[in-house]
């Protein structure tokens, strides 16, 4: 006993067993991991989704079963119909669009598996009911009134159409004025490694289709997220995370990734491109797949501030609601962070996401200090895309890059910007050029290595005679031909 220690009996830690240090450390570590996981848990959301989700399925299936025995006019239907309407309203209020999927006897609500009392069999039976109509999932984009619930149940209780059961249901719902429901076909689980597209062997046309589908889906999800956040709902990163995973797995610099997907969804398309460009920098930096995924998701959220409604006031008994207005440019970053703060539960990805949203317009050498890594990356990606997009700067890719380079070290992290330059190449995707043999081509790939910095893969858009090629002609300038002249125009200027 030292002078510092009181006289106490020695505490015997393990009187019976003799656990080695490894076990003791493991126990401590597991305890900490559980604590950490609990800190990241949004218990309120979990409880709400679990309880309301279970209730939805139980009541919905219960109504269908009741309808076999009683007329819908029966008073017994009043309470469950009211319950179901309330439940849907609560779920929509919390989650936005409510997506219910039944697959192999499991029921998922917004990708969260719902558990049921073992004896009730509600989940399995509801799946069976939907399967009669070849329906695997339904999405409710908005609450349903009691009358709509009544009609919906009636429609689902009908005998399935022999030829196109799902279409019949969708038509019936539409006729009944139930526009906010969407129906999906039957699903099955996909196991790891199954049916993956081999990008090294499939044709570029096939890759392009996939890429377009991924990008379109991503753009739609961005718009959905904007709608949800603008309606004061919770941010939901999971579906966006999946899109990012698809992009990463497909190869961040995959060919065909640079065509603009379309004119309607400009904002969504911009956000997805920023995400892809960010992933290019992240990959060049050597970030892990996990960090890349977080970066891609953060980039998909970076401009969500435009979904905020400043000045909005909820309706009261005596006054109507005030809709509010979109935050101006100066405040959209902070607005985005504010919207993302709604998500509960600590998670490193959330921290990075909020911070990068907040800082994504900050200068590298700005007065508040160096922005976070993700913010610096997204800044480069965003400025580049803002310069090249048709409703932005409208510049060519090469022009945009050349105008960013002088700001290395001031606006942009110089090393990250250089990685970006190295990755895009001398003739970034979208650059139009006149080839040696007189054809006009568009760069469609990122830089593969230093040797091919100025020799990208290109697609011929006009042959030497000025005609549109009949087939898809892709030329690797590292192997043949060469650039005679870089054109100062954009691909969409050429009519198809």
């Amino acid at each position: 006993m030292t002078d510092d220690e009181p006289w106490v009996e020695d505490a015997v830690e393990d009187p019976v067993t003799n656990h080695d240090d490894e076990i003791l450390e493991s126990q401590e570590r597991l305890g900490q991991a559980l604590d950490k996981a609990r800190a990241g848990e949004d218990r309120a959301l979990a409880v709400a989704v679990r309880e309301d989700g279970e209730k939805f399925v139980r009541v919905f299936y219960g109504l269908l079963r009741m309808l076999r025995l009683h007329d819908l006019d029966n008073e017994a239907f009043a309470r469950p119909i009211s319950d179901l309407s309330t439940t849907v309203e609560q779920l929509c209020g919390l989650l936005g669009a409510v997506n219910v999927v039944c697959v192999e006897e499991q029921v998922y609500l917004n990708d969260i598996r719902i558990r049921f009392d073992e004896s009730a069999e509600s989940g399995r039976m509801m799946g069976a009911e939907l399967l009669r109509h070849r329906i695997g999932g339904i999405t409710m984009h908005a609450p349903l009134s009691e009358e709509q619930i009544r009609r919906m149940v009636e429609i689902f209780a009908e005998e399935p159409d022999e030829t196109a059961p799902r279409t019949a249901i969708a038509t019936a719902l539409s006729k009944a004025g139930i526009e906010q429901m969407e129906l999906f076909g039957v699903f099955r689980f996909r196991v790891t490694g199954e049916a993956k597209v081999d990008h090294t062997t499939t044709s570029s046309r096939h890759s392009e289709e996939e890429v377009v589908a991924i990008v379109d889906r991503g753009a739609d999800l961005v718009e959905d997220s904007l709608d949800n956040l603008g309606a004061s709902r919770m941010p939901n990163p999971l579906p966006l995370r999946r899109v990012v995973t698809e992009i990463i797995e497909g190869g961040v610099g995959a060919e065909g990734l640079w065509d603009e997907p379309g004119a309607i969804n400009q904002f969504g398309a911009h956000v997805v491109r920023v995400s892809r460009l960010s992933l290019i920098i992240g990959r060049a930096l050597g970030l892990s797949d996990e960090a890349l995924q977080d970066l891609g998701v953060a980039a998909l959220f970076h401009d969500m501030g435009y979904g905020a409604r400043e000045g909005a006031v909820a309706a009261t008994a005596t006054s109507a609601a005030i809709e509010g207005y979109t935050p101006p440019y100066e405040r959209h970053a902070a607005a985005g962070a504010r919207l993302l703060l709604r998500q509960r539960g600590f998670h490193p990805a959330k921290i990075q996401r909020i911070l990068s949203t907040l800082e994504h317009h900050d200068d590298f050498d700005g007065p508040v200090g160096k922005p976070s890594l993700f913010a610096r990356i997204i800044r480069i990606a965003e400025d580049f895309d803002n310069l090249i997009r048709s409703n932005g700067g409208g510049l060519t890719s090469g022009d945009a890059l050349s105008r960013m380079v002088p700001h290395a070290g001031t606006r942009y992290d110089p090393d990250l910007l250089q990685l970006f330059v190295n990755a895009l190449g001398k003739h970034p995707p979208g650059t139009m050029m006149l080839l040696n043999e007189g054809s006009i081509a568009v760069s469609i790939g990122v830089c593969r290595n230093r040797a091919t910095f100025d020799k990208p893969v290109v697609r011929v858009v006009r042959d030497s005679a000025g005609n549109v090629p009949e087939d898809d002609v892709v030329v690797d300038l590292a192997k043949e031909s060469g650039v005679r002249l870089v054109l100062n125009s954009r691909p969409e200027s050429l009519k198809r």
Partner: protein
Amino acid sequence: MSEPSDIDENLGEVDAGEAQGGATASEGIAPSSEVDPETNPDEEAEEEIPEEIQYEAAVGATSTGIATNNALRSLSRAARSFLLYEPRNQAIRDFLQDYRENMNATLAAHGTMALDIRPFEMTRDGEVVYIERDRERSLAFRLFRDGVRRITLEPGVAWEELLRLLEILSIRYTGIRQSEDDIVTLLWKAGFKHIGIVAVEGFVPEEERPEGSLADQVDLGRVKKRRRRPGVAHIDAPPDFDSPFPNFDEQASAEWVEVPQDRLAAIASEADSLHLPKTTVHLISRLLRVVQDATDPTELSDVLPLINEVRDFLLSEGQLEHLTALVRVLESHRDLNEDEIDAVLGRCADTRALRRILQSVGKGSETLPPELVELLEMIPSEHLQHLMDLLVEERGSASRRLTRLLIEHFVRETWDPGFVFERMHREVSGVLVDILRATSRAIPDRSLQEAVQLASHQALEVQMEVLWVLGRSDDEALVESTLLQMLNSDYAEVRVRVLEYLHDYGSKAVFQPTADMVQKRSTRGITDRECEAAGKVLSVVDPDRAKPMMLEWIRPPGMFKRFVEMPGAQAMQRTAMHGLADVPGKEVDKVIRWLSERCAEEIYKVCMKTLVHRRKEGLSRD
């Protein structure tokens, strides 16, 4: 395509019915390959496992199957143990050890373990090696419903990986659900090298060309018209989003330049988890700056939930430095809302927070880290109350030491420590002792007064602590009177220590009480140590009185007492011999020799030893 995820209704709470229910092996399971208990070496160990966990059937037709079953049941038990016990309970260590041993032994003996996961069972090479039909308890069911279809464990798998697998399953068993990760993501992130997982990645349409609403969404053209969903309020970003752009008049050629790898690595490391604590504080700082901006509608209430999450994260990681930085940030923004900020700050230093901090700081720390003091001093809180609460709960020696040091620090700074002593007197002995030790260092005079009141406390450790306090005091009169009071202690250790103090510092006034103590105790029980110590005290404090008295103790006056051993005589003789050991004079030797001729063996030895000592020291002469 979507990825399935899961909600588990346990949500970290123990199901009382489950815990008490006395689970048995699943009904209806009577595999013909059930192991013969007489040959199952694990049966004894099985009986020690709590009933709540002892539920899965022992299956396996071959030695490989049996071993695999043992390993899997160990895994299942370990994962479920976090549902039933506090994370730091000893039982969990037992389960971990069991899991490690069984898994390693099985892999070493039977090679790669390739398991097919079915809804309620697992098979290895077609043999059922695990079965449990109760959905709540079944490891197979949990894996299957979370999308896992096959697990392969290879020999040579490191404990690190086995632990990580257990961690993921434990999180799932306790029902924790995060909006960012599901089990497939967690397994993917684990980056296993010796554990292979085949899992579902989500659900995909079964039909090649689905009818209904999906059909009109499949458009392979380059321009796609997005279908707006009716009945839903839509938010459109303004057409001039991200405008105005900064100036881009300057141009420069874009050329390839190699970026040094070390610079890239440094940048990439910002995404590491090691940087996360610093990043969280940076985020809070930035957000509070936004809140401070009067033109921005962001309010403190928007940020507070995140601040609490960050605080809890830093606490759970034991990040004292960054926690202090967070507190500094919050302090600098107190004007936003003092009450709210104080509430957040308070939870940076409540009992729970302190426990975490001290557990992480305590290991290897002999002194009080200055940043810990700085942290606590920044936070307005009832530190002393929390610290004393911590002493009640925390028994780790390192944490307790730091807690005492902190109490010492804050007691010095508090203007009225009365409540500390009030609390001290109400506490159990272990906590009382810690508080008394801390206050004695901080305010010794006041602590002495309190210690004196505890002189006759029933607990040994308290009495010993009182002695420690007395030993440091200069108030001789009070110390001596208290020591004399403690001579009546029921504990021999206390009495010995008292006698040792009296030997060093006692006045003549202690002679008689000491003699009385020996005489009283001689018939009730007095240890050899006490006799020795008492004898020395008597000789030192008043040698003139001691010698004749002790000589009488050895050789009592009167024939009766000489020839009939009186009760307690041996103790008094022992005491006297120790006391007289260093008193010069032949007379002493003579008396001791007289005793040696008629005493019991034990006393004889003492006599001889004393005589030898005296001869060596030259005390046998007048």
